[in-house]
């Protein structure tokens, strides 16, 4: 039921946006009775919170597998960034909101809230790099790689198509990888 509701709310948002989507729309889209849906999700915010958490967790799982399967750190960074970018760009509900109702999302992504968001995104990327880096280096690299991805995923286009593995590899090789410390942190100087 939860997954049906999550899929349904994302389809509704892709069509009408967040503000105009009602729980009734979601119930109809999920093919269930309103009463059933309301039992699981008494209000829209709760459903949204669960849906976002679920999508993020799914992506995090994918990235961890992708990072672990990559032969080198460079390969892991490239694969993780490319995959995450494709999922983000291809997420219809997210793209609708960013294009048509940015004011609903931007307060969660920028300035002080941006620090929290980067910490979470960085953590997801860090976990995907743990096979290739000591934990403290993975944490630092995670945030930086997340930053780079978002910096080039700007809505009005950027010189690098982050969904194109070849272009991402070039960017990572030239600018990102040289700046990622990889040796274990010396416990004496920590």
């Amino acid at each position, binding site marked *: 039921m939860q997954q049906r509701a999550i899929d349904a709310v994302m389809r509704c948002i892709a069509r009408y946006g967040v503000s105009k989507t009602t729980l009734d729309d979601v119930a109809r889209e999920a093919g269930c009775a309103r009463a059933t849906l309301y039992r699981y999700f008494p209000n829209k915010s709760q459903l949204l919170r669960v849906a976002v958490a679920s999508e993020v967790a799914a992506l995090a799982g994918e990235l961890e597998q992708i990072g672990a399967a990559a032969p080198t750190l460079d390969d892991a960074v490239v694969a993780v960034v490319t995959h995450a970018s494709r999922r983000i760009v291809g997420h219809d509900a997210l793209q609708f909101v960013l294009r048509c109702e*940015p*004011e*609903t999302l*931007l*307060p969660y992504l*920028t*300035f*002080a809230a*941006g*620090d929290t*968001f*980067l*910490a979470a995104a*960085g953590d997801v990327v860090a976990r995907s790099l743990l096979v290739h880096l000591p934990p403290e280096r993975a*944490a*630092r690299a995670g*945030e*930086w790689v997340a*930053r*780079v991805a*978002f*910096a*080039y995923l*700007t*809505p*009005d286009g*950027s*010189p690098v198509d982050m969904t194109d593995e070849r272009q991402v590899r070039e*960017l990572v090789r*030239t*600018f*990102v*990888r*040289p*700046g*990622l*410390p990889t040796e274990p942190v010396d416990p004496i100087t920590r």
Partner: protein
Amino acid sequence: MASTDPALRERLLEAAYACVARFGMGKTTIDDVVKESSVSRATIYRAFPGGKDELMREVVAWEMGRFFGALAEAVAGAPDFATLVEEGLVFAHRAVVEHEVLQKVLVTEPERLLPLLTTETHRPLSFITGYLVPFLEREEREGRVWPGLDLEQAADYVARMLLSLIGSPGQWDLDDPVQVHELVRTELLAGVLVPDALG
């Protein structure tokens, strides 16, 4: 259609900014701007036919221009590129933290400002990139840039990452000169400058 006299435009933008500082973006009206600038409604609408919406968009772009202009001035005397980036990052971070109007609007009405900031982001991005390229050219002439590096691409990378850090420092304490030094000489510039130029 005759374009607006730049001095008049400047006066109106200053007045609109003062109104935003006092009343906020939502509550500022064209009549407030009339009072503040002593310019008639008719003249204001001739300068900004899109009314308040257009005026708010232009005020945001204008203040961003002032912010990055001040930043450029603050770092103009830097001896080398790495120091320029370091000083720029420190200055810009403090300027954001201490920007009273920005901080107030972020708390009271972020949903009004943030879409405008993000759609206007290409302006500081082009400005910073354009500003950095000549400095990189100087470093290249002195053999301090990685061979074969595309300087426009490098300036674009540094500009994007600087804007990201200025908006949200994340794990970095940008008030700590040791951390800023580390950040600039590693993540930001290790792919741009050769180790000798990183200091």
